[in-house]
């Protein structure tokens, strides 16, 4: 294992976060604060509690997930796409690093950045609403698993993307609807039966539900199912990545 290379890639990527601190950290914090002001304070004060949890607190796990998913996909995809775009990828491909080490460096950095921002959002939320975490370890497990899985998803998007439009396609067009319709701002019990059934086809519902359970012990689906779904998604991504490594798809061809 070339640990020096993993460390170099990781630190190089983290250095970019420091350079773009305003865009990387401040911007998601401001946008999430706006959600809390609008949904938590303004609208939320007129909405009754959901299963004994105030509306402002209820939406917190969903908002953290929204940020975590977009940040991890964005960081994971940009990290590997940028060297492809500038051409500096030649150096990565001609270095004595295995694809596993490349993934550890890039995905590790993307997940770290995503989690840093997720934790800042959690801290910001605590300023607006009363928060308690019923199962901190489970919360941490969902948090880390989601960050790693979606950073990996971003990494694959970055390898697949041929231009900036493709790069932004999934983070901009697919993830927000899935998060918004995945019960971030409501319990799916509030939906008519047909839409409840449709919601069950949305993978993000399981993430948010499991994550919310770790906070308040209320869930749209059984937390074990949530856990299984995220592990299954991770396994699918690992399989895809193995195929990419073996064939050199869009990297060495």
């Amino acid at each position, binding site marked *: 294992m070339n640990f020096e290379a993993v460390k170099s890639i990781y630190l190089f990527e983290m250095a970019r976060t420091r350079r773009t601190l305003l865009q990387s950290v401040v911007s998601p914090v401001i946008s999430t604060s706006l959600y809390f002001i609008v949904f938590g304070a303004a609208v939320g004060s007129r909405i009754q509690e959901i299963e004994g949890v105030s509306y402002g607190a209820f939406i917190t796990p969903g908002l953290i997930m929204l940020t975590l998913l977009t940040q991890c996909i964005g960081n994971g995809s940009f990290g590997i796409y940028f060297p492809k775009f500038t051409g500096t990828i030649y150096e990565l491909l001609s270095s004595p*690093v295995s694809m596993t080490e490349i993934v550890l460096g890039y995905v590790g950095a993307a997940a770290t950045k995503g989690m840093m921002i997720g934790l800042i959002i959690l801290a910001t939320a605590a300023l607006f609403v009363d928060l308690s975490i019923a199962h901190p370890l489970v919360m941490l497990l969902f948090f880390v698993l989601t960050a790693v899985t979606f950073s990996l998803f971003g990494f694959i998007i970055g390898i697949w993307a041929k231009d900036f439009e493709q790069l932004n396609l999934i983070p901009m067009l697919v993830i927000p609807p899935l998060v918004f319709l995945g019960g971030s701002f409501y319990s799916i019990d509030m939906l008519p039966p047909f839409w409840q059934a449709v919601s069950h086809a949305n993978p993000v519902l399981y993430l948010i539900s499991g994550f919310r359970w770790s906070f308040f012990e209320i869930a749209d689906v059984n937390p074990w199912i949530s856990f299984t779904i995220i592990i299954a998604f991770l396994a699918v991504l690992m399989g895809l990545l193995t195929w990419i490594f073996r064939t050199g798809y869009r990297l060495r061809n």
Partner: protein
Amino acid sequence: MPSIVSVSHLVKTYASGFQALKDVSLDIEEGEILALLGPNGAGKTTLISIICGIVNPSGGTVTVGGHDVVKDFRETRSMIGLVPQELTTDQFETVWNTVSFSRGLHGKKPNPAHIEKVLKDLSLYDKKDNMLRELSGGMKRRVLIAKALSHEPRVLFLDEPTAGVDVNLRKDMWQVVEKLRENGVTIILTTHYIEEAEEIADRVGVINGGKILLIEQKVELMKKLGRKQLRVELAEPLSALPEALSGYRLSVEDEGHSLIYDYDVSGERTGITTLLTALAEAGIRLKDISTRQSSLEDIFVELVGARA
């Protein structure tokens, strides 16, 4: 001398169906400077890319230091430094950071003293804290060389290293290459500038259409294929070649003001003495005489043109 890089029956066909390399075999000796000449699309960059691990081969084998480039990629890539053709840089990084990053990627522990030496050798040290976007094209090219040397490679690939570089910088780079060779680094460079190959290479390979047309010691090559030309400028123009001179391989140029005589340097007799005597006997008065040896460029154009 032992081979450090050995290419055997290498084939590359891209997904588009384009066959960039067709059964290429080649041995590169340790410590030599090999220049690969070839027109655009000849397969030079594909060949280098496969040896360095950037592109997967479709067939054949490549070893570096006795290790297979696919199976033992860690060993082979640790030995290789690559300077790509394009000026690809992280615009927002500093010179120091980007060169240190390259060393880390190759699994080497940080060594500021080595990085400092490399930057000083390439006259980059005073720019070490500058962002790459602040540097000129020539300086960026040097940074790419510094990155390639950051992990102390045994083999250095320079893909068109002096493309778009001014004459002074080109001469500087030749000195850097010479210095590296003195330290035992094997250097393979591809170039469009034949004078570059002529100036610094030990051996010259000509590649075209995905095939190595020839690979020879530069001196041998020029001796073998090099022809000399004698140009005789005449005091008075000739309307036609006199009958007495028809036995010589002469051609008339400059509207009769010059006679051109081609001869083989390696030949036992060049025929110059008898030609000059014959000219005097024919009553032709001479104004000046000059000779010209065919350059590598002539050889290259002849070779590529003949086999294209």
